[in-house]
């Protein structure tokens, strides 16, 4: 670390204010440059002409003439100068020049007398004022001082040198020179007028180069413009130069220091150093060095940009040190914008403004603001060091008493300048009151309260306009009041027309007249007004109990607007004509009372009581006037309302009462009631309790003087819905061509509307037939009867077919829609005559045919035997390999579906001759052939008894087959004769079915037309590799046995589904070469099938 230390002493400079001691040579040079002489034309006299005659004056009083003596004559030879005027005055000649008092205008002859040398001769010349030059005395600088911090020179001098010339104009010329080359930095002229007194003049000049950077010299001369002087006027000689210099310290220093400049200005910085300065930079930017003298250097920056808060650093790097300074470039303050002055309390004026463009200057250089009222002369100052950004500035100005109008001027100042804006305000028109506080409410009575609040400020001279906001549940009211302002800030108003026992929330805000601004709302104040007596008696109704002995009084709780308080109890009393019968007090939550009455003619009165007192009574007569011609009407509502109308009845004097209840409730039933005036003829009943699809009873009572009379009874729905149940119906009677149906009513709760009729559908069909589902699709075979007579309970359906199943459907409907359906299947009875005919004719035909056939057979018995039963049967006659229609017909889905238990059957093969080849086939191709010893054992036998099981349950067969393909002990052998048997006796269905169902299933039911089944079969073949007929019994059911493909024996599919094996057609059509279909356990697959197919 270098231990070079900087001395941080403050600049201890002194102003070198000493007069310059100019060198003599320089002085002569200056004189030569500036002293001008006007040559006076001299009339040379006879002997010895005067050379270079010059006359000047510096005070207009004395002319000073000088000349060179004629050749050969010295000055010593002249003894006097005489002027040829009236006095003929002579002046001794001094040292070669002569001072002559100023002569009047005009030519004067001047005689120079020589005492010696020229023998008393003399020389003459003509002297005129016009030939005399006015050259003022050389002015003298009084002081030259400098303010180094601002680089300003201050010069003072007086006009003593020209003091004689009253009221003349003087022009001063001041020059500034600067080291090292004494270059002329500045020349200015400065005009003054002489006043005869010895006036001191001041001149100030600010240098662009800091004064510390170089020595500055100042000189001055003057020019007197005397009006009454006819001769030429000339500049005086320059005063001696005075200088200002900086006593450099040992440490390098940079100048100017901490200068505040306008953004964009040009500025020069210098470094006064004893050692060599290497570089100069402003911020990050380096600038070329300008060498001053010695090691002092300067840099010049043009168009300086705005500084950051701590200023722009100017740094000079010296060999072993740095010197630096800081410049603050910013802006003069902007004109304060949006100046606005108002008062909250007429005590202080608050002025806000926006400072406008930032100045870029902070701290001591930040803008300060002064607010001055020119009327009162008072001012306040605002000063902050940091700049507020995006914030409004504020100043508080204390109001002098009784002053209303203010002329406020806000002046913004910073080191770069100042600006101002002004506002003229009548402060009483600019009042924005504070927020009212301490809002209090006091009761006067149940409808009147007083509001009091505190509003700080002295408003004694103005009126306040206050707005009171009064909230009560669900409503808001605003009240504007004008009150006289007071000095002590307390205000009180009366608010009336309030409702008793109501919670109000009050809040208040105020402004002044004339309006300027509202204050903020005060906080709300809740207040509950006191109770008043209830304004009305409760709405009352009465019902007689079902036994007619007790009268039940109902009343509704009073609405809050009428209760005027908390209802504590009700007083119920009844009176007949003369006396009050009874009186009872019912506490509030109960709204009914039961009275035991002896007579039926009383007036019942109900009074509600709160803490303020009882309400007016509401009275109701107990008597019920009978009405004979009463009909029940129907009504349907709209939305949640139901409208009831009635003709006007002049007998009704007090009012109408509509009461209603749910029709399913027991008597006495009362849900609610509604009173309407006696002059109305309709009422709209609305209740939240109403539900759609529920039947309500409405009763309209008319009030007469004696009591109430039931005028109308109405049943109604708010909204009709469809029934939720179907009517129960039964078949009363069935004949061969008609059915009598009877049904029951639907209960009211389930009907959910007014019954408008029934829809009866009937259709041929049996139970479980899927296409019987929809009634709405309009099938031609569905017949519909619409029964609109709702009282009808039976229906006879005629023109039906005998012994036919019919589906009957009954539905009820209301205006709300159709209810659900209920259906029933009925079979009509047989037509007995037709049945008899139907039996007899076939029997007769059968007998005839039988007789004829028997006859024919007898006659042709030999041929028949040869043809049908030859001794040696012709195998070609067996149609076992064909799917004949007759064989396949009679498929019975139901039977096929039956899952009979496996019942082993025995098939006895009687004729071995024809069977043996089949067995060989089996032996070779069947998967069972893996165990030939079993077969070989069976071979020698003449009749082979094979037990087989109809493989109906898939799992039972498939699993053992898969586990051990050869292990199936129950081998399926095909008896061709048994195959052919159905063919021979197609009509005997009963016999065939068990064979088909319980025994071996011929493959006629295979899913041969289903590709899906093919793949299913393939999977089966892969997994089981055993004999698996009926693998998918369900699909077999769907296969039509008379499908044309099923008879096509050449079809691949058919060959797959061969009559003997699902898996292997080889079973039936064995290949002659026995090595190709080598059976390898359960390895049968479709591949085998296709490979072997060409062998067919």
């Amino acid at each position, binding site marked *: 670390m270098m231990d070079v230390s900087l001395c*941080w002493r*403050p600049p201890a400079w002194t102003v070198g204010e000493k007069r310059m001691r100019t060198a003599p040579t320089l002085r002569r040079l200056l004189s030569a440059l500036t002293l001008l002489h006007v040559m006076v034309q001299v009339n040379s006299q006879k002997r010895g002409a005067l050379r270079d005659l010059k006359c000047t004056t510096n005070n207009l009083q004395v002319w000073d003439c000088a000349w060179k003596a004629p050749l050969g004559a010295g000055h010593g030879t002249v003894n006097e100068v005489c002027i040829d005027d009236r006095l003929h005055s002579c002046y001794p000649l001094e040292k070669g020049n002569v001072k002559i008092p100023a002569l009047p205008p005009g030519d004067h002859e001047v005689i120079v007398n020589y005492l010696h040398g020229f023998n008393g001769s003399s020389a003459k010349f003509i002297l005129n004022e016009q030939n005399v030059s006015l050259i003022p005395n050389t002015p003298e600088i009084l002081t030259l001082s400098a303010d180094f911090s601002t680089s300003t020179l201050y010069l003072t001098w007086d006009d003593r040198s020209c003091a004689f010339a009253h009221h003349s104009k003087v022009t001063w010329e001041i020059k500034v020179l600067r080291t090292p080359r004494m270059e002329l930095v500045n020349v200015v002229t400065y005009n003054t007028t002489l006043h005869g007194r010895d006036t001191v003049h001041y001149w100030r000049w600010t240098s662009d180069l800091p004064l510390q950077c170089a020595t500055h010299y100042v000189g001055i001369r003057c020019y007197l413009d005397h009006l009454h002087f006819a001769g030429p006027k000339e500049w005086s000689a320059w005063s001696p130069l005075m200088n200002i210099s900086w006593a450099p310290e040992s440490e390098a220093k940079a100048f100017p220091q901490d200068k505040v400049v306008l953004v964009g200005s040009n500025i020069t910085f210098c470094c006064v150093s004893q050692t060599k300065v290497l570089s100069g930079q402003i911020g990050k930017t380096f600038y070329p060095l300008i060498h001053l003298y010695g090691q002092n250097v300067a840099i010049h920056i043009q168009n300086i940009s705005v500084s950051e808060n701590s200023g722009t650093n100017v740094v000079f790097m010296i060999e072993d040190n740095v010197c630096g300074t800081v410049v603050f470039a910013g802006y003069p303050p902007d004109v304060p914008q949006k100046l606005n002055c108002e008062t909250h309390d007429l005590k202080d004026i608050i002025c806000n403004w926006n400072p406008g463009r930032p100045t870029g200057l902070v701290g001591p250089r930040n803008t300060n603001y002064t607010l001055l009222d020119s009327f009162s002369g008072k001012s306040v100052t605002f000063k902050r*060091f940091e700049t507020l950004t995006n914030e409004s500035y504020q100043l508080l100005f204390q109001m002098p008493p009784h002053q209303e109008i203010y002329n406020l001027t806000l002046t913004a100042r910073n080191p770069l300048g100042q600006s101002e804006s002004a506002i003229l305000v009548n402060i009483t028109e600019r009042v924005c009151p504070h927020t009212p506080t301490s809002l209090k409410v006091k009761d006067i009575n149940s409808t009147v309260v007083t509001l009091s609040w505190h509003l700080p400020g002295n408003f004694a001279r103005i009126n306040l306009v206050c707005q009171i906001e009064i909230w009560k549940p669900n409503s808001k009211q605003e009240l504007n009041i004008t009150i006289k302002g007071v000095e002590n800030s307390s205000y009180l108003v009366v608010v009336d027309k309030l409702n008793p026992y109501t919670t109000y929330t009050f809040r208040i805000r105020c402004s002044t007249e004339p309006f300027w601004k509202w204050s903020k709302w005060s906080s709300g104040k809740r207040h509950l007004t006191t109770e008043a007596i209830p304004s009305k008696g409760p709405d009352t109704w009465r019902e007689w109990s079902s036994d007619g002995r007790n009268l039940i009084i109902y009343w509704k709780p009073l609405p809050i607007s009428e209760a005027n308080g908390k209802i504590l109890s009700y007083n119920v009393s009844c009176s007949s004509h003369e006396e009050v019968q009874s009186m009872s007090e019912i506490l509030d939550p109960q709204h009914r009372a039961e009275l035991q009455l002896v007579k039926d003619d009383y007036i019942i009165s109900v009074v509600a009581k709160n803490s303020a007192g009882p309400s007016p009574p509401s009275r109701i007569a107990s008597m019920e006037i009978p009405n004979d011609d009463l009909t029940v009407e129907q009504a349907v509502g709209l939305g949640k309302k139901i409208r009831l109308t009635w003709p006007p009845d002049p007998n009704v004097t007090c009012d109408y009462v509509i009461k209603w209840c749910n029709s399913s409730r027991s008597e006495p039933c009362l849900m609610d009631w509604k009173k309407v005036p006696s002059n109305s003829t309709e009422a709209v009943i609305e209740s939240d309790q109403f539900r759609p699809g529920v039947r309500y009873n409405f009763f309209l009572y008319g009030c007469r003087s004696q009591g109430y009379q039931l005028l109308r009874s109405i049943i109604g729905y708010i909204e009709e819905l469809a029934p939720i149940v179907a009517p129960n119906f039964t078949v009363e009677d069935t004949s061969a061509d008609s059915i009598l149906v009877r049904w029951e009513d639907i209960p009211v709760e389930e009907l959910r509307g007014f019954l408008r009729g029934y829809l009866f559908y009937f259709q041929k069909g049996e139970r479980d037939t899927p296409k019987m589902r929809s009634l709405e699709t309009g099938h031609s075979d569905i017949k519909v009867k619409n029964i609109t007579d709702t009282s009808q309970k039976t229906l006879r359906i005629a023109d039906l077919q005998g012994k036919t199943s019919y589906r009957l459907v009954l539905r009820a409907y209301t205006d709300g829609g159709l209810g659900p359906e209920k259906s029933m299947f009925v079979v009509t009875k047989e037509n007995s005559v037709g049945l008899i005919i139907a039996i007899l004719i076939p029997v007769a035909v059968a007998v005839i045919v039988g007789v004829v056939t028997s006859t024919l057979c007898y006659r042709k018995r030999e041929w028949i035997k040869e043809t049908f039963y030859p001794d040696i049967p012709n195998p070609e006659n067996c149609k076992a390999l064909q799917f004949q229609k007759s064989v396949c017909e009679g498929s019975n889905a139901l039977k096929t579906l039956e899952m009979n238990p496996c019942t082993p059957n025995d098939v006895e093969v009687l004729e071995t001759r024809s069977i043996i080849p089949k067995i060989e086939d089996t032996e070779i191709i069947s998967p069972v052939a893996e165990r030939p010893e079993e077969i070989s054992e069976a071979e020698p036998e003449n009749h082979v008894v094979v037990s087989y099981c109809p493989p109906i349950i898939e799992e039972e067969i498939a699993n053992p087959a898969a586990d051990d393909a050869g292990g199936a002990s129950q081998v399926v052998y095909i008896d061709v004769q048994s195959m052919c048997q159905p063919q021979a006796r197609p009509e005997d269905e009963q016999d065939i079915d068990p064979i088909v169902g319980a025994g071996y299933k011929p493959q006629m039911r295979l899913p041969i037309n289903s590709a899906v089944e093919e793949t299913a079969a393939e999977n089966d073949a892969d997994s089981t590799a055993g004999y698996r007929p009926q693998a998918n019994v369900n699909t077999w059911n769907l296969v039509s046995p008379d499908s044309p493909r099923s008879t096509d024996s050449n079809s691949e599919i058919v060959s797959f589904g061969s009559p003997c094996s699902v898996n292997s057609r080889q079973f039936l059509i064995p290949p002659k070469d026995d090595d190709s279909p080598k059976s390898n356990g359960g390895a049968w697959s479709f591949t085998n099938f296709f490979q072997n197919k060409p062998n067919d």
Partner: protein
Amino acid sequence: SLYLLSLLLPLLSPAAPISPAEPISQAYSLALYMQKNTSTLLQTYLQYQGSPFSDPGFSAPELQLSSLPPAAVSFRIWHALDDVERLSRGQEAFLALSQHLQLVGDDQSDLNPGSPILLAQLATARLRAQGLLGNMAAIMTALGLPIPPEEDTLGLVPFGASAFERKCRGYIVTREYGHWTDRAVRDLALLKAKYPA
């Protein structure tokens, strides 16, 4: 009250010096904690002074303050210091630092009045310097050494300084604060080893 004071004084300064290990350990912890923040303080300070102070890598080791003792010392001299010298030099430095930090804080509230972060960091550094000063006094008390009187290290120096001088001064103070903290950590580590708990 004089009588009362004379009664209290012996109680406040017990004759038997307490173990110096605890104040040494406390001072060491504080110095370590201070050490973590010194570079932040210096960087924050420079960042607010504008270029070239805020330029990355700014360093001017040649700048020194005559009123602030430099922390740099040759290792041989440093190692040869005895406890009294070691502690009193540290005390002298941190006393000067705390006064200078106050001065720098004042300077910066003129130059950067709208920079609360910088002003707060300077104030915090000053409080920590005073805290370390107190801890060192406690060590000296524990070691039975005389506590040097507080001196006005700043004297008449600072008020007429130019903005540039203030910036440089602040730089030197914050820099030396770091150096002195580093040195204090080493001083106290040495003492800690010498006076184990």
